[in-house]
């Protein structure tokens, strides 16, 4: 079955290139530009993986991860977040909020895919 990935990032160009890459890999892709909007997309759908940026307007990535983990349906859905090398503290914060892993920015598609295959098959 085709897996569905929700990608949350406030940068349109990043959304587009990730959307492009993931669809090329045969995933279903949903995109959203901030946490709040992402939450409304989760409802009533079967999403297999969530990838989110941490810095976003409205609702940031950490808040989003916390909210998602409160939803029974998504308690064990893998969540990856985007981070830069320099944000070690953020990494821990996000993991404590319930994230599965992270992808270091900037990334190339191969890196993105390899991170994804660590958590879904």
């Amino acid at each position, binding site marked *: 079955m085709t897996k569905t990935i929700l990608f949350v990032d406030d940068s349109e160009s990043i959304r587009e290139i990730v*959307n492009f890459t993931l*669809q090329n890999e045969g995933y*279903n*892709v*949903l*995109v*959203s*530009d901030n946490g709040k*909007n992402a939450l*409304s*997309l989760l409802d009533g759908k079967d999403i297999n993986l969530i990838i989110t940026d941490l810095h976003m307007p409205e609702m940031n990535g950490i808040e989003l991860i916390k909210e998602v983990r409160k939803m029974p349906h998504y308690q064990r859905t893998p969540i990856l977040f985007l981070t830069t090398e320099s944000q070690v503290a953020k990494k821990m914060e996000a993991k404590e909020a319930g994230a599965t892993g992270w992808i270091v920015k900037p990334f190339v598609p191969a890196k993105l895919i390899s991170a994804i295959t660590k958590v879904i098959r």
Partner: protein
Amino acid sequence: MNNEVNTQVKSYLTFKLGDEVFAANVSKVLNILELTKITKVPKAPAYMKGVINLRGSVLPLIDTRIKFGMSETEFTNNTCILVLDIILSGESVRIGALVDAVHEVLEIDDSQILPPPSLGSKYKSEFIDGMVKLGEEFIMLLNVELIFSTDDILNLKEVTGEVKQKFGDAG
């Protein structure tokens, strides 16, 4: 594409030309300047008011009133220059637009925006992104990108008249 981005609240800057209120998406407005020394460029169309020195670069200045088919802007204490960032044939271009007064920034939800009226001439409605009702007044959301990239004079006065007929009286 399986894109889903939710509706958004966008900010609009409202400004006055004569008695009419218009609005432009704030994402296009870089700056609001007070009147400054204008250098007139000879042999230019009337709506091209001249150029001003914007922190070391030369900014073309457009008399929005003339562009909209009104009389030339008379300078008052309220006259302002909107510095706009528009895309012209694929290139980002900065221009200044003279307006009679700047009002306020409105938060407008996409859902509040009424579609542009289909006016007698299709050509005119392209310049309007939509309409918003504010109290008893209708405000036209202008597509500044399009308006300031054409060489034509737009008879917006005519448009506002038609809009009033269509919406104003009924609403």
